[in-house]
Structure formats: structure tokens, C-alpha cells
């Protein structure tokens, strides 16, 4: 292997990236364009959940209870249907997310200290807002009961056991602190898409023939093509980290050196996947669609960013580990929030290294520096099979 030739390919690919404004922005800017609106939408607090109220008690106490709920921005008690059916209809038509039904005899039960009869209906088809509203109602109700009991002359009812929360690494349990580090890995996947497209571009445009005619070897060609993207990817990661820390106030507690090393391993693994996938396509269109389907969408749900990996069935857990994003989410959270070192993160690192290297070797083996490079051709050339089947496969291919 000659570094001279590799460098030549690198220089060519660098020029491609820098001169093609679109490719440049796709690799460098677009991850930020995904990261920033996404982060912003996590800062938006749930407010003004439209709520339907059916007050069948019509007492002073129920009115003051409703007033207690109305405090703050969380709920807007803007619908007043006549009965439960009307309330359910409002939820069905999407005009209210949550409905409160105060039964007759509410005031009597509360004053007697026998609890708080109340029915809460939640729209289960869009529960994001309704969940926040339910937590709000729960908190306010507890306060209200103890205040009501104190007013009635009894001792303020206090629960005998109280739960005290201490969240390490993220004292206010801000979701953005948990999501942003993982999101960086997600948005970097776009670079993987760009690489896959760049590799198929040569085939589609016919410039691959030119490459075939040069004396360059396949490993030199592949490594020379990938390194420029790893470099721009590093730049993008740094931009994303800066945006998270300075733009969204996510703390970065780990070591920058480790960030640098582990990110390059992640990018390398990502590129290896992009390379392997690119071997299967002849057109950029197919390459882009498949890499988006593989890199961009499943990691949203499988990477542990929103749904902890631990609750998934074992076969999905294994599958999720195959996406480079999953171990990277663990690593980034460890670096940002937990200040973990390699000693604690050896497992995700090992997975990244192993999958990256394994896929890279597979890709180099499958890669033919030849025209009509396709994996089916490779099967045709290397897998022994009866003549009739071979003929059938050939006819299907051409």
C-alpha cells in the first residue's frame, strides 16, 4: 500500500467536498440544521393544554378546586360541556386533550376527609400533552387536599412517607441534557448518507471506469475516499458539541481528548457501513434512500435516546447494537454528563471498534475494482452452484 496514492485520492475527494457546495453543506452544515431545531423543540414547555370541565357538584369547594388547577400555564379550562358524553365527544374530535368530571357530592366527600372523588379522562391517542397535564393535576390535587383538610379544622394531612429525588448528572432531569448528546450521533448519520452517495456517484456517472484504469489498489482507493469524510465529520462533531454546550446549555464534563478519539472511531464505523452499503447500489437514488432508512430512522427509536435499550426484547437489543449510533449515544452521554473514562465505557467502545472493523474488512473483501461491481456478480463468481441456477441468476441480473 502506498501512502502517495492514498493521498492523491484524498486530495481529489477533498476537492469534491469543498467545491460542490451541496456536498459541503450536506456533510458539514446539515447535521447542525437537524440538531438545532430538534434541541429547540425540547426546550418548549407544555402549556395551555385544552381541558374540558364537567362540574356536576357546583359547590364552592369544587369551584375553588378548579381554580387551584387553573393556576399556572399548564391547563386552559376552556371547554364546559354539559355532561360526560359531551366531554368524551370533545376528546374524540380532538378539541380537548383531557377532561375532568367532578361528581355530585364532591364537596361532602372532601370535607369528610374521605378522599377526593374525581374522574379524569385522557386522550390516549396523543398522550404527550395529556401526560404533563395529568402530573400537574396530581400535584395540585395533593396540595388541595391537605389545604382543604387544614381549613376544615383537622391537621394538615401529610403523607407519612415522602419520596425525595436526587438525580445525578442532571439535577433537574432536563430532557434536553439526555437527548442532545445522543442527537449529535444521530445527526452525524447524515454524513454516512453523504458518503454512501459519494461512493455510488462514481459508478453512476461512469467516472468509476477512470478509477479502474489507474494503478491504484482497492484498499488505497477506499481509505483515500473515506478519510476526508472522517475529517469533515470531526469538524461537524465539534460544531455540534459547541452548539449543545453554548446554545443549549448542556454541560460537557468529560475529556476532550476522549471525545476526539471516540468520535473518530464512531465516524470510522459509520463510514465502513456506508462503504459496505454503497457496494450494493448502482444509483445514488437507491443509495440515499436505503442509507436514510438504515441510518436515520431506526436509530431514533432503537438507539436508546428516547426508549431505554434495556426494555427492548433481546433480539432488538442485539440489532440496535449493530447501528453505530447506539454505542455512541452511551459514549456521548458518558462524556457529556457522567464524566466517564474508557474504563467504564470499554463495552460500547469495543462494540464500535468490532463492528467498524468487521464491516470494513467485509466491504474491502466484497469491493471489486472492476466494472459492473455488484454483490450479485461476486456471488456469481465465487459461490459454487449448479449450471441451471447460475443461468437463471445471470438472466435475472442482466
Amino acid at each position: 500500500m502506498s501512502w502517495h496514492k492514498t493521498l492523491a485520492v484524498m486530495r481529489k475527494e477533498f476537492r469534491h467536498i469543498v467545491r460542490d457546495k451541496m456536498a459541503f453543506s450536506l456533510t458539514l452544515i446539515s447535521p447542525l440544521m437537524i440538531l438545532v431545531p430538534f434541541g429547540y423543540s425540547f426546550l418548549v414547555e407544555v402549556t395551555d393544554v385544552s381541558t374540558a370541565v364537567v362540574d356536576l357538584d357546583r359547590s364552592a369547594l369544587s369551584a375553588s378546586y378548579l381554580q387551584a388547577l387553573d393556576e399556572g400555564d399548564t391547563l386552559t379550562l376552556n371547554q364546559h360541556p354539559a355532561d360526560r358524553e359531551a366531554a368524551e365527544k370533545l376528546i374524540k374530535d380532538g378539541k380537548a386533550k383531557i377532561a375532568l368530571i367532578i361528581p355530585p357530592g364532591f364537596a361532602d366527600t372532601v370535607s369528610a376527609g374521605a378522599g377526593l372523588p374525581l374522574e379524569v379522562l385522557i386522550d390516549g391517542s396523543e398522550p404527550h400533552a395529556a401526560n404533563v397535564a395529568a402530573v400537574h393535576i396530581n400535584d395540585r390535587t395533593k396540595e388541595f387536599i391537605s389545604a382543604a383538610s387544614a381549613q376544615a379544622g383537622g391537621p394538615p394531612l401529610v403523607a407519612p412517607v415522602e419520596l425525595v429525588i436526587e438525580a445525578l448528572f442532571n439535577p433537574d432531569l432536563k430532557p434536553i441534557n439526555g437527548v442532545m448528546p445522543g442527537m449529535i450521533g444521530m445527526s452525524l448519520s447524515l454524513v454516512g448518507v453523504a458518503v454512501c452517495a459519494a461512493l455510488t456517484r462514481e459508478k453512476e456517472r461512469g467516472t468509476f471506469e477512470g478509477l479502474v484504469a489507474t494503478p491504484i489498489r482497492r484498499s488505497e482507493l477506499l481509505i483515500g475516499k473515506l478519510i476526508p469524510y472522517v475529517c469533515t465529520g470531526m469538524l461537524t462533531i465539534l460544531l455540534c458539541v459547541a452548539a449543545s454546550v453554548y446554545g443549549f446549555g448542556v454541560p460537557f464534563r468529560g475529556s476532550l481528548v476522549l471525545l476526539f478519539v471516540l468520535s473518530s472511531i464512531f465516524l470510522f464505523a459509520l463510514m465502513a457501513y456506508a462503504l459496505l452499503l454503497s457496494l450494493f447500489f448502482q444509483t445514488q437514488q437507491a443509495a440515499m434512500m436505503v442509507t436514510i432508512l438504515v441510518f436515520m430512522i431506526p436509530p431514533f427509536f432503537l438507539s436508546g435516546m428516547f426508549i431505554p435499550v434495556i426494555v427492548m426484547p433481546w433480539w432488538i437489543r442485539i440489532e440496535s447494537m449493530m447501528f453505530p449510533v447506539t454505542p455512541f449515544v452511551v459514549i456521548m452521554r458518558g462524556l457529556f454528563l457522567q464524566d466517564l473514562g474508557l474504563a467504564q465505557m470499554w463495552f460500547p467502545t469495543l462494540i464500535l471498534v468490532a463492528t467498524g472493523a468487521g464491516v470494513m474488512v467485509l466491504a474491502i473483501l466484497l469491493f471489486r475494482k472492476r466494472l459492473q461491481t455488484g454483490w450479485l456478480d461476486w456471488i456469481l463468481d465465487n459461490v459454487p452452484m449448479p449450471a441451471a441456477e447460475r443461468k437463471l441468476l445471470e438472466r435475472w441480473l442482466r
Partner: protein
Amino acid sequence: MIARILNLVHKELLHFARDRVLTPLLLFGPLSELILIGVATSSNIEHLPTVVLNQDTGQQGAALVQMIEASPVFDLEQVDSEAQARDKLADAKITAAFIIPEDFSQALANPLEARQTQVKLLLDGADTFAAEAAHFGAEEVVDAFAGLVSMRWLNEAGIEITEFEEPTIRVLYNEKLKKSFYEMPAEMGIMLYFVAACVASLGIARERERGTWEQLLVTPMRPIEIVIGKALPAIPIAYTVFVLMLIVSLVGFGLPMRGSWPLLMAVVFIYILVELSVGVLISSLSHTQMQALLLVMVLMMIEFIFSGYIFAVDTMPKALQFLSNFIPMKHGLNMERSILLRGVGLDALWPDILMLVALGSGILAVTTWVLRRRLD
């Protein structure tokens, strides 16, 4: 004009029929995606690895540990010291740690000396969603435990209250609050956008990039006809994808279908048409496939955020709420969820349909204008 367009449609369909890689991927890629997401979201966040440090030697501490153990949210292990629990949290081995204080039983023993005692819950704040689930689970367990203690106190004091009337919470349309029920219709919406926009936009960009676009231009077809002809094949593809996804989610994941079938099929058709016109607009703006892809991706993120898939649109600031009306996916998702889960009829959905139709015609008008300007 129609005959000319149909000729082009025929050519495009031949392209798809001959492409042995792209077509199966277009049809089955979104489907496998949906299955993965359906499986990943059908279980609640449960069995979180948790430790408990019971410093109490009395009965109450043991009783609370038993209640935590009975909760499906936690998979419990004992530890001997708080330092050990914190170490495990710091190494991200566990999500949560309960710490029961030494005087726990003592504090709860006698109602006459009743004082409030505290159970501490340490959480791994790095994984906020797991931490939230652990928080809610713990609150539920501790509330139930506290209820039992107060009941015992009242009974010992001679007050006979057998039960408190607690607020009842009923979840409509998704009784078990399954994530998959509201994420699968949304996922269908995003997949339809993806298929329609990709087919429409990348197809034309490819002709441009390869130089065959000029050849198409010298045919008697007008540019808008070419664009329509290139986009139309996306309709049967996207519609087939939708039907496949619908079958899988109804049969495989038990997604309910509570509304009217013809309405669902009709609104999805309209939604596909609108997303298709978005793809056409992208294609008229871009020169290369890379460019088209970039626009498709960025628009996908914007549609995703404002569609109500993960974030509730109703609770965003008023200006963003207003903007979200111009996002086709918002209407598409709303209609799919409404019809499938809530069985809503045309009487409540007509504003969405009207808005979609308006958006579609608006986008098409802009596209024709862009095409005319670029070609003259």
C-alpha cells in the same frame, strides 16, 4: 396532454419494474422500519435495573422493599452502602437507587409521635426518559405505601375508614397507553412522505444530473407535464406501501381501526398527493440528487418536529402553532390517528382535508411558476 403524460408514466414504471434493488427496497424498507419501531415501542419502560439500600431493621422497611419488588417497573437488587449505590449509578450500571433511612420503622410505628420520614431515590439523570419512568414508578409505589400506613394509623386511632376515594384516571382510545398505538400511525405518515418525496424529487434530479433532462425537454411535452409524469408513479408505490403498513399494524400489532375505511383510504390518498407535490417542488429547485436529498432531509426534520409525532403541537408557542398548519404531515398524522384510534368522522376532519387540498394546490402553483422561470 394526458396521453403524453401517460407515455412518460409508462417509461417511469418500466424503470421501476427493471430496478431489482430500488423497487423491493421502496416497498419493503418502510415496512420493516414500521415493524422494528412497532416492536421497540410496544413495551412500556419497565424492568429498570435498580438497587435498594435498606438501612432499616424493622418490618416497615422490609414491607416497602417488597412493594418495590412487586412493581413491574423495577428489577431489584440489594446493596450494602450508599457509596456502592452511587458507584453503580456513576458507572451507568443502574437507573435508580432507593435509600430507606435507619429510623424508617420507628418513625412510622406510632401515630401519636407521627412525623414524616423520607425515602430517597437516586436517579441516573443522563438517561432522562428512563429516569422519568423510574420516578413515576417510585412515586406510585411510595404513595401506595403511604396510603397503607395512614390507613393503619387511622384504624389504630379508632377511625374506621376502609378506603379513600382516589381520583380515577381513565385513558380513552388507548387504554393501556401503548406507545405503539400512537407512534405507528405517525410512522406511516412519515414513511409516506419519505417514499413520495424521494421518488418524485430524486427521479427528476437524476435526469438533470445525467443530462437526459435536455432530451426530455426537446420532446413535445411541456415541462410541467414532464414533472407530473415523473411524479405520478410515486402514487401507486406510496399507496401500496401504505396498505402493506396498515395490514401489518392492524394484524401484527393489534392497532385498532375504529373509523370509516373509505374515509381513511381517501384521506391517505390526498395526503400522498400533497407530499408528492412537495417532492415535485423540491425537484424543480434542485440540480443534483445530493441537493434534492438535502432538501428532502431538512424538510423531513421540519415536518417531523411540527407534525405532532414526538412533540405536541398544541402546546407550542402560538406563532409556531400557526406555522404548523402549513405542514402537510401535521394534517396527515392528525387524520390517521383520529380515524384509526378515535374513529372520528368527516364532520371533525374537514378542516384538515381542506387545508391539505389548499396546500397541495398552492405548492403545485409555486412549482409551475418556478419551472417556467427557470426554463425561460
